[in-house]
C-alpha cells in the first residue's frame, strides 16, 4: 500500500468519527431514503433522523455571502450533515486536483539504482544457480532442425540463390506494334509553318514593291497592328550593302510566342452516319394498297377541268370544266355518259354525299345549279325529283341575298333542278355530310358576304358570319360534329355551328392557303398552299402544323383524304399528284404516321397549270386527278 492510499483511508475514518453518527444502513444508494426524514435505525429501533435541512435558496445565498467557510463546506450524503473541511483536507483536495501525490512527503523523483545495465559485471546480479536446461540441448530445437533437414533432403527447401548483381532492364515498348498509330502520333499537330519571304523582302525588290512616299507616310502613321507589311521594303545596291537585320530578335520572340501561346489542338469532328439522321419510316411497299399507276384517262373536255367529284356509290364521276360543260363519267370504263352544258366556266362541282339523294351542285359565275344527273338507282333519282317538286313556298317570304329558282324547260330536260343566283362569283361548293346543307364560297376581301350556307330542303340561305376576316379560300363541314372550317389566306378558323362561336384558329405558316381537306375522323386537317407546302394539323395537338411537307415543286391546287384507307393526296401545278400514307391512330398518345408513298405523273402542264383537283374513290384505293390539259385521270 502506497502512502497516498493510506492517507485517504485515514481521512475517511477521521470524518466518520468526528461526526459521531453511525451509518446504520450500510453502503446502499442513498436516494432510497430521499423521501424519508430519517436514514436507518439505531440499536433501539428508533429512526435516526437526518439533520433538518430547511434551507431555501435565500438562506443558501445568505449563507454563501456571510459564511467565510462556505466554500469548504460539503454535504455528507451518507448522513445528510454538512461538514466543514479542515485545512489538511483542503490541501489534499488541491494536491489531488493538480495530479500530485496525496502524501506531501512522498518524493517521486528519488534517484534510481540501475541494476541491469549493459555493463558486464564480474558477479551475477542474483545468486540464483543456473537451470539444468541451460546445459542440455533443447529437444524442441532438435525437432525443428530435424524437420528442416528433412525438408532440405526432400528438396522442399532450396538454398537461397546468389543475388544477381547486374541491374535488370526490360523493353518498355516491346509489346507495341510498330505500325499502329499511337495516340501521341494521332494527336500530333505540327507547328504552323512560317510564311516564306516574298519579293518585298528581297534586298533588291522589283520597283513595284517599293513604297512610294505617300505610301510610306501612310505606313508610318498606321498602327503597327494594322500594317499590311511589318517592314518597309528597301532596296540595296548589292548584297554586301545589306545591314544586319534589326528585327531579328523581335521576330524570333514573336515566333516563340506564337508557338507556345497559341493552343494547337484538333477540333473534334462529330462523326454521325448521315443515314442515322433520317427518321425510320416504314417502306412504301408495306403500306399498300395505294395508287401506283395510271389506269384510265377520261378524255372529252376541251378546256381545263377545274373540279371533279365522285358519286357516293363510286360508280360515277362528275367533272366541271372551263369549256362550260359538266360531264358525267362511268368510273370503270372512262365512258362519258352525259354532258350537261351550263352558262359559264364551271368552277366547282360536288356530288351530294347522301346516297339516297341524287344531286350534283355545280357552280359557275355567280350561279349554283343543282343537277339531277339521272344516274344510279332510278328510284333514288325519282325520289330526288319528287323531293324538289314537293317543296311548298312558306307564307312569309324572307328577304334573302340568294335567289332560288326552279329550272324549267330545256334546262329541266338536261337535269337542272334548282338555280341559285348569288350576288358574287361562286368559287367553291361543298356539301354537308347529311346532304341537306350546301356551303358556297364567294371570295371578296373584307366583304361580310363571303360564305353562305344553303338548306336545300327548305330553300333557305344563311350568312353565317357577320364579318369575315381576310379573303376566304375554301370552307368545309366537319364530317361528324357541327363544326365548320373556313380557310382564309393564312389561317383556318374552326367554328362551332351550334354555339355560334370560334373554337380554334389554325396557323398554317404559309403565305396563301389554296385548299383544305378534313380527315374522316374529324381530328386532322390538311391544307395545301400556293407556296408548295402541305400542312397537316392535328387538332388535338396544336394550332400549329404537326407536319409540313414540301414535296411539290410548284403551288398546290388541291388536297384530299381517302374515306377509308389511310391515304391522302395532293395535286400541284407541277403536274404531279403525290399520294401519302397518313395513318391516324385512335390512341391519343400516338402521333399520326405520315409517309409519302408515290408520285403520280400523267398530266401535261398547260398554261403553267398542272393538276387542278384530286379526289379519292369512296371505296377503292384509287385517286382521280383533273388537270389543265382537259383530262381526268384515274390512278390505281
Amino acid at each position: 500500500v502506497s502512502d497516498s492510499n493510506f492517507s485517504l483511508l485515514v481521512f475517511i475514518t477521521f470524518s466518520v468519527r468526528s461526526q459521531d453518527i453511525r451509518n446504520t444502513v450500510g453502503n446502499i444508494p442513498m436516494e432510497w431514503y430521499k423521501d424519508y426524514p430519517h436514514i436507518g435505525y439505531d440499536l433501539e429501533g428508533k429512526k435516526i433522523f437526518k439533520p433538518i435541512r430547511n434551507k431555501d435558496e435565500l438562506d443558501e445565498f445568505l449563507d454563501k455571502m456571510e459564511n467565510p467557510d462556505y466554500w469548504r463546506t460539503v454535504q455528507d450524503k451518507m448522513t445528510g450533515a454538512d461538514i466543514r473541511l479542515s485545512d489538511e483536507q483542503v490541501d489534499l483536495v488541491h494536491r489531488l486536483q493538480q495530479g500530485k501525490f496525496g502524501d506531501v512527503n512522498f518524493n517521486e523523483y528519488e534517484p534510481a539504482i540501475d541494476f541491469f545495465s549493459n555493463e558486464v559485471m564480474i558477479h551475477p546480479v542474483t545468486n540464483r544457480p543456473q537451470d539444468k536446461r541451460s546445459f542440455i540441448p533443447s529437444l524442441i530445437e532438435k525437432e525443428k532442425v530435424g524437420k528442416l533437414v528433412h525438408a532440405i533432403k526432400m528438396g522442399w527447401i532450396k538454398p537461397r540463390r546468389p543475388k544477381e548483381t547486374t541491374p535488370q532492364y526490360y523493353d518498355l515498348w516491346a509489346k507495341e506494334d510498330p505500325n499502329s498509330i499511337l495516340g501521341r502520333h494521332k494527336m500530333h499537330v505540327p507547328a504552323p509553318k512560317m510564311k516564306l519571304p516574298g519579293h518585298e523582302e528581297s534586298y533588291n525588290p522589283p520597283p513595284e514593291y517599293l513604297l512610294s512616299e505617300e505610301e510610306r507616310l501612310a505606313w508610318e502613321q498606321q498602327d503597327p497592328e494594322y500594317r499590311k507589311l511589318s517592314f518597309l521594303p528597301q532596296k540595296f545596291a548589292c548584297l554586301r550593302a545589306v545591314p544586319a537585320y534589326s528585327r531579328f530578335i523581335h521576330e524570333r520572340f514573336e515566333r516563340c510566342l506564337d508557338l507556345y501561346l497559341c493552343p494547337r489542338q484538333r477540333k473534334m469532328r462529330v462523326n454521325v452516319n448521315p443515314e442515322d439522321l433520317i427518321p425510320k419510316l416504314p417502306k412504301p411497299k408495306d403500306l399498300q394498297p395505294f395508287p401506283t399507276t395510271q389506269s384510265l384517262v377520261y378524255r372529252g373536255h376541251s378546256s381545263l377541268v377545274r373540279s371533279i367529284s365522285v358519286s357516293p356509290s363510286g360508280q360515277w364521276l362528275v367533272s366541271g370544266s372551263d369549256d362550260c360543260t359538266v360531264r358525267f363519267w362511268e368510273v370503270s370504263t372512262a365512258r362519258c355518259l352525259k354532258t350537261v352544258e351550263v352558262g359559264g366556266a364551271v368552277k366547282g362541282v360536288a356530288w351530294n354525299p347522301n346516297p339516297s339523294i341524287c344531286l350534283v351542285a355545280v357552280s359557275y359565275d355567280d350561279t349554283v345549279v343543282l343537277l339531277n344527273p339521272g344516274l344510279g338507282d332510278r328510284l333514288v333519282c325519282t325520289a330526288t325529283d319528287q323531293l324538289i317538286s314537293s317543296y311548298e313556298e312558306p307564307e312569309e317570304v324572307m328577304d334573302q341575298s340568294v335567289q332560288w329558282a326552279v329550272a324549267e324547260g330545256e334546262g329541266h330536260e338536261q337535269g337542272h333542278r334548282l338555280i341559285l343566283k348569288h350576288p358574287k362569283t361562286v368559287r367553291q361548293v361543298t356539301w354537308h355530310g347529311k346532304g341537306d346543307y350546301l356551303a358556297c364560297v364567294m371570295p371578296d376581301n373584307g366583304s361580310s358576304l363571303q360564305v353562305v350556307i344553303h338548306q336545300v330542303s327548305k330553300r333557305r340561305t344563311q350568312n353565317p358570319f357577320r364579318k369575315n376576316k381576310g379573303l376566304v379560300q375554301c370552307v368545309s363541314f366537319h364530317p361528324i360534329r357541327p363544326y365548320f372550317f373556313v380557310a382564309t389566306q393564312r389561317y383556318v378558323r374552326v367554328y362551332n355551328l351550334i354555339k355560334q362561336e370560334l373554337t380554334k384558329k389554325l396557323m398554317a405558316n404559309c403565305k396563301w392557303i389554296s385548299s383544305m381537306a378534313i380527315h374522316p375522323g374529324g381530328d386532322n386537317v390538311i391544307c395545301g398552299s400556293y407556296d408548295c407546302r402541305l400542312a397537316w394539323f392535328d387538332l388535338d395537338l396544336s394550332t400549329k402544323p404537326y407536319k409540313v411537307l414540301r414535296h411539290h415543286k410548284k403551288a398546290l391546287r388541291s388536297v384530299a383524304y381517302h374515306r377509308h384507307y389511310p391515304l391522302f393526296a395532293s395535286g400541284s401545278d407541277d403536274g404531279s399528284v403525290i399520294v401519302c400514307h397518313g395513318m391516324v391512330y385512335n390512341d391519343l398518345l400516338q402521333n399520326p404516321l405520315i409517309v409519302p408513298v408515290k408520285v403520280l405523273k400523267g398530266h401535261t402542264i398547260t398554261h403553267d397549270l398542272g393538276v387542278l383537283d384530286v379526289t379519292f374513290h369512296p371505296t377503292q384505293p384509287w385517286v382521280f386527278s383533273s388537270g389543265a390539259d382537259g383530262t381526268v385521270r384515274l390512278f390505281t
Partner: protein
Amino acid sequence: MSQVQARFFTENKKYLIDDVPFSIPAASEVADLSGVINKLLEAKNGQDLQDFLKVIFQKLCGIYYLETWDKTEVVEIEYVEKFTAPQPEECIMHDDWISSVEADSEWILTGSYDKTARIWSMEGKAVMTVAGHTDVVKDVAWVKRSENLQTGSLVVNDASLLLTASLDQTIMLWEWNSERNKVEARHCCRGHAGSVDTVAVDPTRTKFCSGSWDKMLKIWSAVPTVEEDEIEEPNRPRKKQKTEQMGLTRTPLMTFSGHNEAVSSVLWMDAEELCSASWDHTIRLWDAETGEQKSTLTGSKVFNSISYSPLCRRLASGSTDRHVRLWDPRSKDGSLVLLSLTSHNGWVTAVRWSPSHEHQLVSGSLDNVVKLWDTRSCKAPLYDLAAHEDKILCVDWTENGLILSGGADNKLYTYRYSTCVSDAGA
C-alpha cells in the same frame, strides 16, 4: 460454239420421237428447235406427214437461257404442236362502244353503249337490232337457239331466246325469230336497284343469274311465259305502262346478298353452283339451290371478269391490275392463286377460257391488246392480237374456234383460230 444436251418429250403420242438426248447448239432459237423436231419426225414417219407439222416449245422463255445452262446437264424440253396464229377475219363496225359479246356457231350477239344489242351473222352482216333499253346495254347472253319453243300451248319453230342486261336496272328476255327476222320483248326483269352489269344462263337453259351494282345476285326464270309476274309496287302507273310496252314484268326467283361492293361478273360452274366476282376483292361460290355461300376467294384488287373452264377446273380472273390470275375454286388451303399471267399493261377487263382446250385462254385489257395465253407457258403470251385502237371491254371464244373482241373503238374483231385437238383426248 457451245453445245447443250437436250431431251425432247411430248404428251402427244402421235408425234413421239426416240427418247435420247441430242446435242444442239446453245444459241438455238425456237425455229431451230422446231427444225430439229421436224427432221426427226420426217425420218421416222416419212415425208408426207411433215409438210404442215410445226412444233412449239413449252419453255419458250427457257429457250433464251439455253446458253446459261450447265453443259453437263440434259435439258428437258417439251414440245407440242404449233398452232397457227389467229387469223383476223372480220371487223364489224358499231355505232358506239361495245360492252359485251357472246357468239355461238352461227350468230354473234353484241351489246353496245348505244342502248341496243345487235345480232350479226358470222360474215359480219347486221341481222337484227334489239332496241328497247333506255340506257346502255352492259351484258348480253344467248339463252336458247332455234329450237322448238314452248310458249303456252303454242309451238313456235325456229325462235331463239336472248338476254340483255342494261344500265337502266332491267334485264330483257327477247325472243328472236331468225326466219322471219323479228324480235319481240318477252319479259322485262325488274328488281335490281343498280345497273345490271352481268348475266349468265345456267347449263339447263331454264334459269339465269344476274349481278348488279347494287351488290346483289338475282336468279330469274329464263322460260318465257304469257303471264306477268305480280308487280310488287302497284303505285307507279307510268312505269307499268312502260313495262307493258316492253314485255311482261318478271320478278326474281331468288336474291343472293353477301357482296360488299358491286358484282362485276357472274357465271355458272355447273347447274347447282354459281360463282360471282365483285369489286369488294372477292370471288364467291354460291349454292344455286339454297342461296348459301359456299366459299370465298379473296384477292387484293377489284375483279373485272372471271371465266371458268370445266376442262381444267380452273377459274381465270381479270382485275384492275396487269395480271390474269388462275384460281382453283375447290382448294380449301392457303394459296388460292395458282398462277399469274403478266404481260398486259392495263387493267384486264375480260378473260375467257377456250371452250375446247384446257390450257388456253384469251384476255382483253385496257392497253388495247387481246392476248392469247397457254397456261403451260406462263411467262409470255402465245399471241398478242393488237388490232384495237382503244380499250377492250369484252372477249369471247366460241366452240368452233372463233375469238371475238370488242371495245371502245366501236369495232368488233373476230379471229379464226385453228381448232386443235385437246391434249387430253390424244
